[in-house]
């Protein structure tokens, strides 16, 4: 690394634009486009009997109404199952518009196009759909009981069942190891549904150019390149005739990696059919009932351990609520089942999950993507073991940690990318030590006792996690220096507020030796970069970051070759600083990078002074060599790809102190501490921002958010009035510390940081409340009403058994 920009906490370069209202989000575009609105199912499960559009026809401004019958071709086929897996024996996806059965409230049934959204909604209101209600399946237990089926041809509502087993060092299976263990425990742990809930919903805006027979689509997506391929395939267009651009995207958190959404197919399809621009902007209610949710899982844990708390066998069975469809495969439960082990060696492990269909919104990854559930299982297990043995909770964890000398550490499982789950690097004991110090673990008992004297209830909780980040298959980076010295960096993956404009520029500035002010970064625009995967799984810094670094290194070599020619020097004696190539130790002999860019492109025609320097009579040099040397290309630019062999594994430990109100059962988070290791830090400020946002989302998931379905499959809180995301007032100041164990797997030594903040929060808060209350917490989220009822139950139980049970649950 050449300059100091890499690793510096510089402010986010995108913020001045975004915070002064100059962002360009989907709905800021296409002011004159026609507007689409959808008629959506009010039933969780029903047969569509007939659709009567007559009433809509006299809405002035109506342009078109479409139902499934109108679609035809590949547009009318079921949406793609994006990630097939052998265990997903019964994968199912919906149609862009319901064909004959609707399987959740909010499923699109008809599309209306009108001159504006108001009129489109008026028309949609007047379309009468006849439904024959079918029995809805709501909730994991009902799905497992399978009295009714979500899909007629999916027995037991089970879309997938997957077992992974790792025998212990002695060759014993997990059940056998548990059987032989000196201590055993068995319990149920549950996490409810929440959702990504970006402030900007989804949205699509399509422009068909009839003369050029080409399509431009703007989509609020986490993967513009793959949306492009999907649209090209569905609309039977050559990919070269489709361009997809992700404009500023107001948050994604996972939900926008799913694609193509029905609307992403239908809006471009209608635009082509009508020869008009069409736009659809999702509203909040649509987002609640028509996009995707996550987290709902019920886990049954069996654990066997020794007197020190070392886990000898762990057997986890869990049920995953997949909602109505499985477009994103079984990525979420696979991640839960593999990342559950965290930083621990557990002897023998067996995990089995069944993924169940219900008549609710489909489930796809939400920031953390199955890890919060897995960490909840593992960390609650650690706390249970500690309570059982009467040992300090951190000692039990320490007894199980993978040690720094154990890397690379193979957990013996297959990860979400189909590759072995091998941890690349880390120092877990140090993480634990640091978080204990940051939160003041050893002194907390005193504070807790003193508070109790004053009638206050404080509790301390802690959790550790390992996060597989930077999954493949690849990303690319393109870098170009133009003749005025500007550096254009582009990568195909998209940005949703992560700060890519800043960190990718930092990487390029450091690699090339140019001022960061000269660098412009473009993401998510298929006109600039066509091959990419997308922004998810904390992968942008690892994948695109390294690809950009490699592209910069290649470009730098080329620049030095050309400069060496011009300066009549050896490239090895050259360096680039502040955008100027010079001979080391001889600052007089130098040439600006912009001139190198000019020289890199031998010209016949001059259109300005700079270009004139590259024309045939201006450049000197040999006349018996081709102007572009063999193996070279004109232009100071280049593309490189980075494709990792495996994921990198970030890790961390969080701890929190909560206070519970003895009277009202309200829970307040007083302190929240995070120690985080994502390898080498490109920009600590951005990493901290990611952690802050993640922790806030985690606190939302732990204390406020849940998606509440009634027995009919109606979502009862489909608005921001009733789905309670925390405000700034609910989030404490977050204290952070970093540990840097570089990844040996990639040139920059970085690991992902995007999801870390959210992952262990439910486990931490549950542990802290348990510590404050002496009541076991086995289900999250927890509301004051939940805590009130747990207290009542504990009081009744204490009355019945003179306090023995209630006392036992109190961790030391």
């Amino acid at each position: 690394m050449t300059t100091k920009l890499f690793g510096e906490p510089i402010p986010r370069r995108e913020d001045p634009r975004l915070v002064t209202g100059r962002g360009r989000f989907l709905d800021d575009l296409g002011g004159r486009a026609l507007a689409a609105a959808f008629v959506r199912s009010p039933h969780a499960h029903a047969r569509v009997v007939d659709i009567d559009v007559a009433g809509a026809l006299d809405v002035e401004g109506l342009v078109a109404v479409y139902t499934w019958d109108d679609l035809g071709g590949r547009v009318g086929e079921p949406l793609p199952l994006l990630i097939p897996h052998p265990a997903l024996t019964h994968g199912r996806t919906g149609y862009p518009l319901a064909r004959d059965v609707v399987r959740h409230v909010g499923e699109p049934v008809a599309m209306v196009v009108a001159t504006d959204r108001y009129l489109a909604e008026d028309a949609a209101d007047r379309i009468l759909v006849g439904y024959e209600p079918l029995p809805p399946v709501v909730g994991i237990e009902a799905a497992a009981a399978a009295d009714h089926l979500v899909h007629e041809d999916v027995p037991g509502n089970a879309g997938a069942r997957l077992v992974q087993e790792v025998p212990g060092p002695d060759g014993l299976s997990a059940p056998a190891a548990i059987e032989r263990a000196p201590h055993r425990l068995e319990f149920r742990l549950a996490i409810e549904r929440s959702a990504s809930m970006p402030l900007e919903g989804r949205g699509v805006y399509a422009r068909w150019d009839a003369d050029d027979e080409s399509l431009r689509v703007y989509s609020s997506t986490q993967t513009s390149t793959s949306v492009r391929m999907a649209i090209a395939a569905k609309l039977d267009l050559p990919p070269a005739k489709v361009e997809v651009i992700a404009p500023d995207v107001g948050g994604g958190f996972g939900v926008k990696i799913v694609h193509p959404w029905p609307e992403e197919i239908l809006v471009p399809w209608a635009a082509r059919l009508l020869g008009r621009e069409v736009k659809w902007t999702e509203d909040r209610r649509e987002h609640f009932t028509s996009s995707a949710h996550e987290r709902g899982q019920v886990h049954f844990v069996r654990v066997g351990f020794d007197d020190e708390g070392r886990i000898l066998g762990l057997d986890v069975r869990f049920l995953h609520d997949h909602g109505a469809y499985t477009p994103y495969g079984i990525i979420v439960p696979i991640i839960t089942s593999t990342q559950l082990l965290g930083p621990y060696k557990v002897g023998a492990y067996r995990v089995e999950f069944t993924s169940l269909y219900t008549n609710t919104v489909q489930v796809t990854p939400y920031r953390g993507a199955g890890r919060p559930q897995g960490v909840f299982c593992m960390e609650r297990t650690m706390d249970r073991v500690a309570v059982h043995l009467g040992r300090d909770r951190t000692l039990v964890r320490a007894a199980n940690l993978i040690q720094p000398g154990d890397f690379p550490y193979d957990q013996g499982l297959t990860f979400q990318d189909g590759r072995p789950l091998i941890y690349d690097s880390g120092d877990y004991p140090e993480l634990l030590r640091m978080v204990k110090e940051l939160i003041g673990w050893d002194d907390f008992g005193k504070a807790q006792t003193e508070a109790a004297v004053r009638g206050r209830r404080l509790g301390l909780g802690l959790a550790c996690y390992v996060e597989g980040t930077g999954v493949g298959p690849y990303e690319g980076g393109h870098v170009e220096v133009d003749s005025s010295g500007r550096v254009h960096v582009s990568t195909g993956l998209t940005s949703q507020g992560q700060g890519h404009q800043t960190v990718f520029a930092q990487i390029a500035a450091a690699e090339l030796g140019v001022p960061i002010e000269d660098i412009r970064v473009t993401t998510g625009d298929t006109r600039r970069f066509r091959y990419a995967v997308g922004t998810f799984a904390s992968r942008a810094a690892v994948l695109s970051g390294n690809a950009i670094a490699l592209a910069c290194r290649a470009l730098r070599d080329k620049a030095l070759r050309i400069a060496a020619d011009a300066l009549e020097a050896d490239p090895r004696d050259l360096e680039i600083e502040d955008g100027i190539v010079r001979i080391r130790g001889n600052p007089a002999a130098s040439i600006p990078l912009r001139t190198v860019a000019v020289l890199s492109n031998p010209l016949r025609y001059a259109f300005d002074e700079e270009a004139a320097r590259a024309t045939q009579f201006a450049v000197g040099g040999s006349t018996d060599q081709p102007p572009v040397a063999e193996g070279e290309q004109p232009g100071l630019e280049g593309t490189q790809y980075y494709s990792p062999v495996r994921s990198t594994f970030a890790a961390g430990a969080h701890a929190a102190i909560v206070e519970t109100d003895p009277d009202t059962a309200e829970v307040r988070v007083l302190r929240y501490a995070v120690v985080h290791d994502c390898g080498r830090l490109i920009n600590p400020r951005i990493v901290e921002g990611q952690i802050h946002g993640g922790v806030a989302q985690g606190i939302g998931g732990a204390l406020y958010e849940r998606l509440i379905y009634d027995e009919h499959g109606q979502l009862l809180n489909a608005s921001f009035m009733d789905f309670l995301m925390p405000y700034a007032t609910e989030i404490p100041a977050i204290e952070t510390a970093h540990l840097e164990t570089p990844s040996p797997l990639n040139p920059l030594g970085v690991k992902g940081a995007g999801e870390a903040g959210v992952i262990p929060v439910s486990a931490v808060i549950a542990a802290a409340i348990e510590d404050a209350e002496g009541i076991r917490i086995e289900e999250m989220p927890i509301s004051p009403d939940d805590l009130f009822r747990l207290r009542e139950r504990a009081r009744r139980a204490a009355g019945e058994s003179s306090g023995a049970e209630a006392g036992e649950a109190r961790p030391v």
Partner: protein
Amino acid sequence: MKPPPFAYRAPRTLDEALAALAEYGADAKVLAGGQSLIPLLNMRLAAPAVIVDINRIGALDTVFVDATGVRIGALARQRRVERATDAARVQPLIGQALRHIAHPVIRVRGTVVGSLAHADPAAELPVVLAVLGGSVEVASAAGGRRAIPAAEFFAGALEPALRPGELAVGAFFPALGPRAGTAFAETARRHGDYGLAGVAAVVALDDDLRVAAARIGCLGVAATPFVLDLTDVLGHRPPDSCDWSAAAEHAKRAVRPEADIHAGGDYRRHLIGVLTERTLRAAAAAARDGVIDD
């Protein structure tokens, strides 16, 4: 989430407004701060044929304070009333409750009278008006003006006792008597949310500094503000020797809150007990401090 079509009227005087309301009767809806009405329109839960926007009627943007109480015009924003120190001197409970409504940005638009006219069972201001025994002044083109006592105004959940063609032009919050104090407390899921349960308390002391009167108003426990007189339960004792928890227990037994997605009925009832005790103690302390200050 776009409203269905409606006609829009924006009168500049009270008379024009009343004329418009008379013309459209039950088809019209008044638009004040819009903080409750606009979401209802956008979700198509309300579909009035005509919106009568009163925001241009400057004459309704008033806050009058005198020894009898605080009179608040239909266009006075919650934020303005919250900051009115003279109003706070005469009747501190209004400001104490206002701080629990949403966030400053919403209070900058939302009106006091609009909140009363919306008559949400979880809202703060209806409870304040009810526990103080205030009233809402209404006007219509045909019927002139009348004052509706709080006990009658809140006819049901989201059901004010307003007839078609009537505009609520103001609300009257009676002054706090001598040797009296107030307190407001609520439990909400997040800062600024509607309360799961809340209690407004007014305690007055007699010359010997014994409890002469104690009333509470509860939100979130019934379709309309629930007012309870606890004077007898407290038994005319000096605050130091009052059995506050007995009063709380009494309040708890008097309410039958229903469950919703945010909290069960038992929990809400439990909260009423907790908040009753907290607010009664605080109101009594404020009453005594007031006496000592004077």
